[in-house]
């Protein structure tokens, strides 16, 4: 299912709470409800991984 994808949202929440989760969705253009229905395909994982990396840079963490 979308366990790996949802992990990225969980990690974002750890980084900066709801705002960080929202920002991750904004960067990746994938909402957390939508992520639940998406497969853990390499493409989707890469999108969220890149988005999380960008989020980390923006938050300085």
């Amino acid at each position: 299912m979308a366990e790996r994808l949802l992990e990225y949202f969980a990690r974002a929440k750890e980084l900066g709470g709801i705002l960080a989760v929202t920002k991750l969705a904004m960067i990746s253009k994938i909402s957390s409800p939508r992520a639940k229905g998406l497969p853990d395909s390499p493409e989707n994982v890469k999108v969220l991984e890149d988005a999380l990396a960008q989020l980390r840079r923006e938050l300085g963490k």
Partner: protein
Amino acid sequence: MRLGPKIISSFMGFIVMFGAVSTAATSIILDRRMQREVETSEVAFARSLATRLFKVVKDKEVPTITDTLLDELALRPEKLEYLLVLDATGHRLAHTFVSPIPERLSSVNGPFDAVGYRVERLRGDSINAVDVSVPVLEGISPIGSVHVGIRGEYLEAIKHDLVRMTLVATGAMGILAFLVALWLTRRIVLPIRQLTEVANRLSAGILDVQLPGLKSKDEIQELEGSLESVLAAVSTLMAELGQQTPIAGVPDVENAHRLGADVVPEGRNG
């Protein structure tokens, strides 16, 4: 006015203006070119005729002059209206008219200026021609004049043909422009309309929307990308807020602040 009609009317307006300007320009250019054409080729023809007729004009051999004029007229009947030869006093020696000579032609006799020829537009009830006249010279003394009448209809037909062609080309361009405008409208307006519908649904609080998935690789696709980001952010935020459950025993106002809602406490309203 909506975007589609705006694009189409702009294109059509441009084409109509372009057509009007190019038709007017064609007409003006043709007038000048034809004037030059008359002044160069027909003056040369009249001079050549005057040189050939010099001896017979001097001897006033009317039948010979008439034969020559008729022969010349037969060579270019579509272009030449008449040929006329006058003597030094302005009396007609020979001509190619089969009907009475138009009255307007009696005024075309007169002295020649330094350029040695005259070009005069004759337009009346019975004549529509450009009269090109040159003197028949004996040394430097004029002993008569040769008049070449070019059909006005011939010159006008050339002009009308070219103006008509310009108008046809403009019409074809207009149809093409209309089709291009329609195509552009479909390419630009349709995606914008789809994105507007999505934005309208979002503004109405409906988050369950489907983006059109444009592949245009332009600003409109960028707009869709931005809309997609906003939609993802709002959906995530709503989902996250939905997960936050009010804590039992904590006042509603505090719970509201926890969830980030902008709530005015009861009792402060009014």
